[in-house]
């Protein structure tokens, strides 16, 4: 029986949602190639994680009781050893910041290709076809490769696996070369605190790189004042220091679910959308009809923000 090996993500005592989605993606791929689905959970409270990962479709959960938090050296060495022992056809990890910190090294050591940030997968046993975006989400591509591979999956593309499975739960004891562990995690810090919590707002006026210059932000503040709304933004605005970190929506910022989210000059890159797609109503103001934000918006104005925003503000004065 060949194998698909999925490696779960967890942080500070919690399995991350994408770990359950990984089980669904892994099961489908295992079905495609007639393989068993093996799941590994490495470091931390693995005996507590294992039953949670035993959901429908999982054949074996391997617990690796070594260290507390993510260490890319431990993850790399363990995953390589387990994949080799199982002769895994595919190794699957989340396309998370930690996934990208070890999955490429696993591929390198197994000497197999890596394909990252996939949104759909299909295999005939030898050829893997993976769907992924290019050009900031403007196009979707299908790439193929043959033979074994390491694959990372995008969050929120597969449904979470459900139910309770009847997986075998077994401990895997990796042979860790401690001299080769050259990166040491010394702590964590929460950033993006402060007085404003954009995740509480009912209406967000959110601004992106389309605003062009810092002084143009006044247009956005004027609109937010007129609407009695809160200002948030995409990442480049925060990177430029025009708004504080606590205003950033997205993967590395805040997740928001307002009644109305008005995206102004924001293209809708996946890391941004991860923070706002749960909004009740999404309005996009963008000159580009092909901007990915248009694909998730409920209402759109395809026009210049410098014309539309002042006109909108005027409607409320």
């Amino acid at each position, binding site marked *: 029986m060949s194998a698909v090996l999925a490696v779960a993500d967890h942080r500070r005592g919690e399995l991350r949602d994408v770990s359950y989605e990984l089980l669904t993606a892994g099961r489908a791929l295992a079905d495609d190639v007639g393989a068993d689905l093996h799941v590994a959970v490495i470091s931390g409270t693995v005996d507590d994680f294992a039953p949670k990962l035993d959901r429908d479709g999982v054949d074996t959960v391997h617990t690796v009781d070594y260290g507390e938090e993510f260490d890319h050296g431990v993850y790399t060495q363990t995953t390589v050893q387990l994949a080799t022992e199982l002769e895994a056809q595919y190794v699957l990890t989340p396309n998370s*910041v930690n996934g990208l*910190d070890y999955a490429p090294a696993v591929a390198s050591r197994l000497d197999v290709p890596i394909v990252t*940030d996939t949104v759909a997968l299909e295999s005939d046993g030898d050829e893997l076809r993976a769907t992924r975006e290019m050009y900031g989400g403007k196009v979707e591509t299908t790439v193929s490769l043959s033979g074994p591979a390491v694959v990372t999956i995008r969050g929120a593309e597969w449904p979470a696996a459900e139910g309770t499975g009847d997986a075998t739960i077994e401990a895997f004891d990796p042979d860790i070369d401690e001299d080769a562990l050259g990166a040491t995690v*010394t702590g964590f810090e929460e950033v993006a605190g402060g007085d404003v919590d954009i995740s509480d707002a009912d209406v967000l006026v959110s601004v992106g790189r389309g605003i062009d210059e810092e002084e143009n932000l006044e247009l956005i503040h004027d609109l937010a004042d007129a609407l009695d709304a809160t200002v948030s933004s995409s990442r480049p605005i925060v990177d430029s220091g025009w708004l504080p970190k606590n205003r950033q929506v997205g993967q590395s910022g805040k997740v928001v679910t307002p*009644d*109305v989210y008005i995206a102004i000059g924001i293209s809708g890159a996946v890391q941004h959308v991860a923070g706002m797609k749960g909004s009740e109503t999404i309005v996009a103001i963008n000159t580009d009809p092909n901007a990915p934000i248009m694909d998730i918006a409920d209402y759109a104005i395809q026009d210049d923000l410098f014309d539309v925003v002042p006109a909108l503000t005027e409607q409320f004065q």
Partner: protein
Amino acid sequence: MKILVPVTEVTTVEDEFEIEGTAIADRYLGADLNEWDEYAIEEAVQLQEAGLADEIVTVTIGPDDCEQTIRQALAKGPDRAIRVWDDALADADLLDVGLKSQILAAVVDAEEPDLVLSGVQSGDDSFGATGVTLADAVGYEWAAVVNHLAHDFDDDTASVRRELEGGVEELTDVELPAVLTIQTGINEPRYASLRGIRQAQRKPLEVQDLADLGIDADGLESALTLEEMAEPESETDVTVWEGDADETAAELADLLREKGVAQ
């Protein structure tokens, strides 16, 4: 300390475009210095200004066309550039992570930098995996998605912050030599000065092919093949308001009032 910065020229796409076969038609494409690399270059230059780095070398995989982008990078401060290209690479419609890393690894072996600062990802194909693959290939340590680097390297260690999801940062000590993939926002990239642009024209730009790097072009192939390209389908039934700005703003105002906004 010597720093190597891999610099990518990314393909940019106009708002409106057409797909022909498995590619966007050339007439809609442009080129630019990869956004993430701007931050990697700036970080290297700041380390040099702080007296911590002696030399900054950039390396780019790409045809002659990208020399303008390389000069653009040099104008911001690096000392010299290497460009790697080969006829064997010209036919590939996609250079996969393994192939790029193999080439960069040969450059690292030749240059022996103490620190490699790459971007987190390239803005066009966004694999986000080349830096870490390179690190493993050359036996360097690494850290992915770094948004702070302490400007001292006591005990031959780089103290970094890795930007995790949800506003959490991980503090990590990474032994040198290392590859760090640099995230936007780590610094404020400078604009090239006129003097910098002038000087960039005279900085050494060495061109190497695969044979120069000791790579056998024969067995070299991208493991990934591009099979299809399409515009993504809309996930929602979007209502697009037509008309001039006053008309569309009025439509949106009606919607907002209906939703009870500003009342």
